[in-house]
């Protein structure tokens, strides 16, 4: 076993991880805006279809142009992601390809063609197809993108919570035994709902931010006001839904990835009646001393909240990092093995598999093979732990998880408040609007002279700048969500089944390093071009 571990080039693993992370992070800069704007421009075109008012058509076309600029980059970065499973994670592709490949294939057949076919009609079909067909194409473009998200999130959820499969010692891989379990895994459902609603938030924030820029410049006022209302509604509904689905996602994590939850909370030692950490000092420069510290310093917590969040019970038991490492007893009396015990069981699984395959090659009889197979199945649950050298390897980077989670949740809460406030003002609800403005004036956030007004087109500039500043902030929150999801699973590519260092391809680290920098330069350059084009297009404005 030692030989195996010593002979893997650590550089290859790190660069492969870095390259995949780079591609995923860049990809996720474009995908949420695609999903979010798809809803917004769909609503706008529906308004045109119902009213036949040219204003709505021009407005929809304007947002579709911005959608198109962003869409191309999402497509470009997406293709790399799919193929990187093969190019950089070759062992992974074989070991679980029987299960993991299916969602990717379905995504291609069902979603990508829908997206790419109808996006062409959306752009080039205004004068070539009926308004109804065009409207359907716009919605189908968004639907295609959303279905695509479904299947890729099914694949990702399976990496977090591998279900519907069995290990086959003859083929040396995991094989699917239930497509329904894979495709409809509760983990996948939660992940999809949370991810897609978070993408709609990005669409809402972007729409509101761009609209506020026009209001600040006192240009395109009608389009900006109508877009702002739609953006704020989409944003508010999405943010509330994201909060609800985020809670469900966190409960899923508590159940199947307790180490990730412990890292998110910097919970070194668990127990019952556990509080939710609001803030604490978790150094971003390295792994904290979780073995010796009772808890993270300067911790301020909400009593009982973590127990409730994880178990729906204020007194529920939540294991900490040390509990998971050393083993613990659940409230129902069952015992979770320590990591050292799991490592031993994992090694037993590998030895049993070696013996099984040797016996099979030697033509052993059925009874011998069945006996060896039973020994393997008994320990197969811990197979991945057989590749772990030291128990500290199964602790993910705590600081990244801790801070990324707080950024995501903090910005999410801020956005709910902001969208709600914006809607109160823009919809001129008599009592609430005046009340809100009075409150803001009392707090000194708007001038006293504006306190009784209800015109959003005439606010101080900082209001608009705040809305614009929310765009990068929302992106940071969205990316932070993925950091939690992926860093929290480390060191596993597939939870408890396959660590990263056994999943890689047989490549020289120099090759992967070179492609990493090539993609870094390419993506960064293209991002700079895209942002510049986007800004110029916004500055140019709609062709009303």
């Amino acid at each position: 076993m030692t030989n195996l571990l010593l002979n893997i080039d650590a550089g290859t693993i790190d660069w492969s991880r870095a390259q995949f992370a780079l591609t995923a992070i860049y990809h996720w800069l474009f995908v949420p805006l695609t999903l979010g704007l798809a809803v917004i421009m769909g609503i706008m075109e529906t308004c045109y279809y119902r009213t036949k008012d040219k204003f709505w058509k021009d407005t929809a076309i304007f947002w579709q142009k911005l959608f198109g600029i962003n869409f191309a980059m999402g497509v470009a970065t997406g293709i790399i992601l799919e193929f990187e499973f093969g190019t950089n994670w070759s062992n992974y592709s074989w070991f679980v390809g029987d299960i993991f490949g299916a969602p990717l294939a379905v995504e291609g057949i069902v979603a990508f063609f829908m997206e790419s076919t109808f996006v062409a009609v959306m752009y080039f079909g205004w004068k070539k197809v009926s308004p109804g067909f065009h409207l359907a194409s716009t919605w189908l473009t968004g639907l295609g993108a959303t279905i695509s998200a479904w299947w890729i999130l099914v694949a990702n959820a399976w990496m977090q919570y591998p279900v519907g499969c069995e290990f086959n010692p003859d083929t040396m891989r995991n094989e699917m035994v239930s497509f329904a379990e894979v495709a409809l895994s509760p983990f996948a459902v939660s992940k999809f709902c949370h991810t897609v609603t978070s993408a709609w938030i990005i669409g809402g924030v972007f729409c509101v931010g761009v609209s506020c820029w026009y209001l600040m410049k006192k240009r395109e006022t009608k389009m900006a006001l109508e877009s702002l209302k739609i953006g704020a509604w989409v944003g508010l509904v999405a943010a509330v839904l994201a909060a609800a689905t985020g809670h469900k996602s966190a409960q899923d994590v508590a159940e199947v990835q307790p180490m990730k939850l412990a890292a998110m909370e910097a919970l070194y030692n668990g127990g019952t009646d556990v509080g939710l950490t609001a803030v604490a000092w978790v150094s971003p420069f390295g792994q904290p001393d979780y073995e010796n510290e009772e808890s993270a310093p300067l911790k301020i917590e909400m009593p009982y909240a973590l127990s409730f969040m994880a178990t729906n019970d204020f007194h529920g038991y939540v294991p900490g990092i040390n509990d998971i490492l050393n083993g613990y007893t659940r409230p129902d009396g069952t015992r979770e093995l320590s990591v050292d015990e799991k490592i031993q069981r994992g090694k037993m699984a590998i030895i049993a598999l070696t013996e099984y395959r040797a016996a099979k090659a030697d033509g052993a009889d059925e009874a011998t093979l069945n006996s060896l197979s039973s020994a393997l199945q008994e320990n197969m649950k811990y197979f991945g732990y057989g590749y772990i050298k030291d128990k500290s390897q199964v602790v993910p980077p705590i600081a990244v998880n801790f801070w990324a989670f707080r950024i995501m949740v903090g910005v999410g809460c801020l956005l709910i408040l902001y969208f709600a406030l914006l809607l109160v003002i823009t919809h001129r609800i008599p009592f609430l609007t005046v009340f809100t403005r009075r409150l803001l004036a009392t707090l000194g956030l708007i001038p006293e002279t504006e306190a009784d007004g209800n015109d959003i087109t005439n606010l101080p500039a900082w209001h608009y700048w705040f809305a614009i500043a929310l765009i990068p902030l929302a992106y940071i929150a969205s990316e932070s969500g993925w950091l939690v999801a992926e860093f929290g699973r480390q060191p596993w590519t597939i939870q408890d089944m396959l660590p990263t260092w056994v999943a890689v391809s047989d490549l020289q680290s120099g090759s992967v390093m070179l492609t990493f920098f090539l993609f870094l330069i390419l993506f960064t350059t293209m991002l700079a071009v895209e942002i510049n084009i986007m800004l110029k297009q916004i500055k140019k404005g709609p062709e009303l």
Partner: protein
Amino acid sequence: MTYEFLQHYWCFIVSLLGALLVFLLFVQGANSLVRSIGGNEEGRRLVINSTGRKWEFTFTTLVTFGGAFFASFPLFYSTSFGGAYWLWMIILFTFVLQAVSYEFQNKIGNILGPNTFQFFLVLNGIVGPLLLGGAVATFFEGSNFIIEKNNMIDFGAMTPIISRWANASHGLDALLNPWVLVFGFAVVFLARILGCLYVMNNVNDDDIRDRGRHSLLVNTVPFLILFVAYLVHLLLKDGYAYNAEGVIFMEPYKYLTNFLSMWYLLILLLIGVVLVLFGIGKTIVDKQFVSGIWPAGIGTVLTVLALLLCSAWNNTAYYPSTADLQSSLTLANSCSSEFTLRTMFYVSLLVPFVLAYIVYCWRAIDKKKLTKDELKTDHAY
């Protein structure tokens, strides 16, 4: 449905996607000719806007081809993509450049300038078909890899990785094989031929059609020389066969034998070649004929489909190893489990529905040919 049937069925689906991909390389072919058939700046924009309405089909077919290969033959996915790393990375790199080039090139705020993105389109137009063609040629010529599944559990193994490339070039070594280059360049010229035919059909502009006809002739000559040379080489070369026990061995004239024993593939190949030649010939001879893309396109699909199926059916190792014969991939030793193939079979029943709406939308957009006026009034790249 037996397991064997499902393996052959999925080989057919993946081959069909591969054949459609080669047809859709007309986008790349036309882009590589943008200067010669576009003529001036206005003509170049017409060509780019013409292919710009189809590039996503090529892209999506490439992605779906990869996804379908992953789902049905994961050992190929892990061996070829992880092994021939540089070959695939260069292909992907050029496709990434292509994907953004359409949208960005003529937009205000494009800090790299339109020529940069037109260069990217030309680069993708040549390198993409060349390397994809080269990758297909390795199905007949072999690749330098070794597979050992016990590596994952072997204490003495160098690494726990199952599939390993046997040299440090990671796929670029394929380009040292002249026959791989012959096939690769044949695909380049085929893509250019299809590109000419597509643009002539899709753009209503006499100058572009005249230049396209001339370009068609110029590209047909090298294509025919290269294609015929490779076909003769293929039919005369030894192939990678396997017996009932799965033992792989070299068999003289294997691919010729395959075509003779699978006569329906031979008919498919012949019909395909005739259709391609008909599409080219009639377009060159008949000045009024601009629909050559359809017979030539269908012919391309049939020809490539026949070649790909010939590489895998009839007990043939479709991804042969030149480093270790027994590591070669066959349908049986590289496919997914029966359960997965069966499940994916039901998913594949959606393909006709997908094709139907693609055809419907394609016709809706293309029923009126692209003109210079349209670029001034409608959404344009």
